[in-house]
């Protein structure tokens, strides 16, 4: 049973526009959420995270929003650039248990 769901397998956006990547979770014990980015032939790299005590965290062009009541988070990339084209994984952590639970990932393509 998937506890972290990324229901859209792919997303294509125009360069300069906003990319919105969505993630849903089912386990109410999750209290920390991370986004990882993965290029082909490389391992996932950490991008941005958010604690459950916050509803927004921003880092440059990347913002993560958390809606705890809906068990939903989203990653916004503004403006999108061709170099952002990659697979993005949503992951969640239960503070009492430092293991990560990943979603299946979403492939973002940014068109020039």
């Amino acid at each position: 049973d998937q506890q972290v769901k990324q229901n859209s397998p792919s997303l294509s956006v125009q360069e300069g526009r906003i990319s919105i990547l969505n993630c849903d979770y089912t386990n109410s014990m999750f209290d920390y959420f991370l986004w990882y980015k993965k290029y082909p032939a490389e391992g996932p790299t950490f991008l941005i995270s958010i604690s459950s005590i916050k509803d927004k965290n921003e880092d440059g062009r990347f913002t993560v929003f958390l809606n705890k009541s809906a068990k939903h988070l989203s990653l916004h990339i503004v403006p999108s650039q061709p170099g952002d084209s990659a697979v993005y994984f949503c992951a969640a952590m239960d503070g009492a248990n430092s293991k990560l639970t990943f979603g299946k990932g979403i492939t973002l393509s940014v068109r020039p």
Partner: protein
Amino acid sequence: DAMVIQNPRYQVTQFGKPVTLSCSQTLNHNVMYWYQQKSSQAPKLLFHYYDKDFNNEADTPDNFQSRRPNTSFCFLDIRSPGLGDAAMYLCATSREGDSYNEQFFGPGTRLTVL
């Protein structure tokens, strides 16, 4: 640069022939993880080491074993690979003690079973 290194990047083995994948790290992190990722699936945690303490996930098959001879190195042994074990194997490290520690990943080893 501090990093997580996995060798080999690509491994081909025959059905039933034991194979070992290796991971090394220069980050001096005390926790090391092994994940299995099949095509279009989420990375799935197989086991992790907290220092020398081995922690197996409940649903990890007995066919998968691991060794951590020192802080820097960790090995994944697949005793009798089946066709269903073909996947990308990712090694990751983290520093326990940091609050909500992020994990640092290696590039992965893609295993093919013939």
